[in-house]
């Protein structure tokens, strides 16, 4: 049963990612794109966790943690770029 749930979830998250990419491409404004990217990062975290569950290993958890950290910094940098131009000043 868990396996079924797992694959359904993977399907849902993948679908979510696709929808996010759609928004990302659609825009229309830069903040929309960054928001979609940020969400995509979160989806990626979910996918990594799910991969760990499929494989029955926890080896990929740190990758998920890293996505969280990097996604945040990336989003912040992009946000700052959009409103301020210089990311580091």
């Amino acid at each position: 049963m868990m396996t079924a749930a797992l694959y359904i979830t993977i399907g849902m998250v993948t679908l979510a990612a696709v929808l996010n990419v759609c928004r990302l491409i659609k825009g229309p404004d830069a903040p929309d794109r960054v928001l979609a990217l940020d969400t995509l990062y979160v989806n990626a975290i979910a996918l990594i966790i799910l991969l760990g569950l499929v494989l029955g290993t926890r080896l990929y958890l740190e990758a998920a943690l890293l996505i969280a950290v990097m996604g945040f910094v990336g989003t912040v940098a992009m946000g700052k770029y959009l409103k301020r131009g210089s990311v580091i000043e």
Partner: protein
Amino acid sequence: MSLPLVVFLPFLGALAAPLFALGGRTAIAIASSVPALIALAVLFPFWETLANGDVVVQSYEWLPTLGLSFSFRLDGLSLLFALLILLIGLLVILYSRYYLKSHENVGKFYALLLCFMGSMLGIVMASNLLLMMIFWELTSLTSFLLISFWTHKQGARRGARMALAVTGGGGLALLAGILIIGNIVGSFELDAVLAAGDQIKAHAMYPVALTLVLLGAFTKSAQFPFHFWLPHAMEAPTPISAYLHSATMVKAGVFLLARLYPALAGTEMWFYMVSFTGMATLLLGAYVAMLKHDLKGLLAYSTVSNLGLITLLFGMGTKLAAIAALFHVINHATFKASLFMAAGIVDHETGTRDMRRINGLWRYMPHTATLAMVAASSMAGVPLLNGFLSKEMFFAESLALNLPGLWGWLPPIVAILAGIFAVAYSARFVHDVFFNGKPVDLPIYPPHEPPRYMKIPVEILVFACIMVGVFPTISVGPLIYAAASATLGEAVPDYELAVFHGFNLPLMMSLIAFFGGLLMYSQRQRFFDFHARFREIDEKAVFEAVVARCVNLANRFTGKIESGSLQRYAMLLVVAVIAMAFLPLTNLGLYIGASGLTPVDWPTAIAAGTLIVSAIITAVMHRERFFALVMLSVVGLVVSLGFARFSAPDLAMTQLSVEVVTIVLLMLALYYMPSWTPLETTTPRRIRDIAIALTAGIGMTLVTLAMLTRPFSSISSFFLEHSKPHGGGTNVVNVILVDFRGFDTLGEISVLAIAALGIYAMLKNTALTPPSGDGQGHPWTRDAHPMMLAQIARPMLPLALMVSVYIFLRGHNMPGGGFIAGLITSVALILQYIASGMVWTEERISFRYHNVIGLGLLFATVCGAGSLVFGYPFLTSTFGHITWPVVGEFEVASAMVFDLGVYLTVIGATLLALVSIGRLSPHSAIKSKKEPV
């Protein structure tokens, strides 16, 4: 050792010459004559041997691979030339003492003169063709430098370059010819080559070799059509003209004909090529000499003509003709050198060489005039002078030549014509300069006799002309004989160097030439008028124009090809790769290999689709730069997910961290750049690029497919096996990085460090004006450091450090390691910069990133070197398990220290790079309006 000494003494003298130059002109002239005198003294004892037709060879090994040796040879031929070189050289040295002015660079002059003398001796005495080649080109080089001695004169520079181009170029042809001969014979030693004449002449490459060798000889000896450089070489100081361009260097070509006579001569090809070239040159030189108003020009073309005569004689291929040629070499050298010196005196004393201005010098310098007149008579072929003798022999040989049919008339007619011209221009030289009214507006007036010692060399040469002319057998007979036997390489036929051979056809020819010449001279104005109808070609201008045109063409061609367009260069590179890999890949046949395809799962397929779409959008929308950047992030994210999906957790983490730092970096740069790319490539260009890109992409797809579907085995089972027991870690990738292939990693962090240092250096003094607002024209927000961000950034740093420690420590056994840990720390610090600004963050960082980089590299290196102490190679790792109370058992591996080095280098390098860019921002220097909270 004595023969090499002869050659090398002048070079030694050349080295010393600048020193003696300090002592004045007399000192250096004396010093310069020493090598020549010693050389003469060294050669003297050989005379007995040589007179018997024997040959002395002294040989030393140099470059056996090449067949090049230091071997020198003294036989009659080389002796004849060596004596010419040394004796006339001595006279020129003496003459130059008075010719040169005290302010001139006499050191350079004598040094080059001696270099030339040595090179010339080298040519004539080398017993190895390659060695001769070396000296051959050296004479071209020294000649170049001597012609351009007065570097401030444009004519001198151009004449010099022209001479170098022609003789140097001919030298290259000669080189090729010699190499071919060497290959045919199997040796470059003269003995072997001269003995292998039949072999050479029978070889298929003989025509090529002969043509190339003759090219060398003809260019050097100014044979038609390469004669044009010689008159322009007369821009050189007159002693140089006398020495190089009449008596010696230009004789190198005919020397070569003589030297290789046994090896190359005696074929029809030789006959036609050499004799016809000689004939053409003989006539052309004589004709033009008549036309020259420049004293030295006249002499120069007369030299061309005489060289043609000698060449023609060698070309005839008969033994007697060859002997006549050798005889004329001596005769021409003596009378022409003396004429040049006389011309030099005239030039020196009047300040001009224009015969239209120089008239009636008999009144001012009768002594010089007398000498010049004797020498000119010899040139004209007046009996009792040496020129007459060899010309007589020439006439005789021209008659003896048996050409088929009407052609038989050609040589004698040419000979007579040339003789007429020779008489005419000699008459002109004498009459125009020393008589013919009064001088016309001379720069130096009144002219008078030169210093005593300046005339001595001329006197000696003129004396020689007379001596040889009157007592040929006594004076040069033995020398000619020795030379002839050396040249012909076999029995010398009977010949007679008599003053008078009776009333015969050659004498008739001489008489015709003499009176015809006088007649021609008297009718010279008609001749000039006749010639004036043709357009005068200034070879120097033509040469310059040709060179300029070549340079121009080359420049334009280079400009076209080396267009400075990166797009083109990159295109070429990509196309080169495609071209190289194309054929093998089309040979692949089936792209799907033995292991076949594995099934696709939907999430992976969707992820792949996302990646493909994102990449394409990145490319299509690249002109909207920020959008492209966001899409690039998606690509990066999916790539790292892909790594995770296909069993590479370490790669996933690394890719992700690197990607974010890269994006930050790109945004830092994008700040200063336009946010839009203008559309500036044409549609065909874009289509071309798309085609190239698609080809590359399809190629990579096929390669990947072919590769992935084929089974393989690698060395990696070793790593999997030894990772834990011998590397002390379960994360095999990490063990490879810090142990099995730790050296790669050392290189890798070096790259990182170098990049950061390079970036820092590059941006040190760079000033960029940041835009005041974004691409849409909105001014930037006031709020540099949003409060919420600053607040969340505070705990991030310590937490990230902790995570770094965690990732670092587990790296040897689990995904992680120094590199990823370093990136986490870096990103946390970057977050501080983003959130609170440069000034705020830098205040809190007490170390220089340079030092962090240095420390990191040092850790890695020292850790690697640690094993050296124990007798193991660099980077040999060790590990052990330690048990502590409470903590329990834990593993300590030396590789961890290495990894710590990686960690530190990554932090230092990443931050140094990013901060260097951040520092460009004007806000970083002045505190922003709103202090960070």
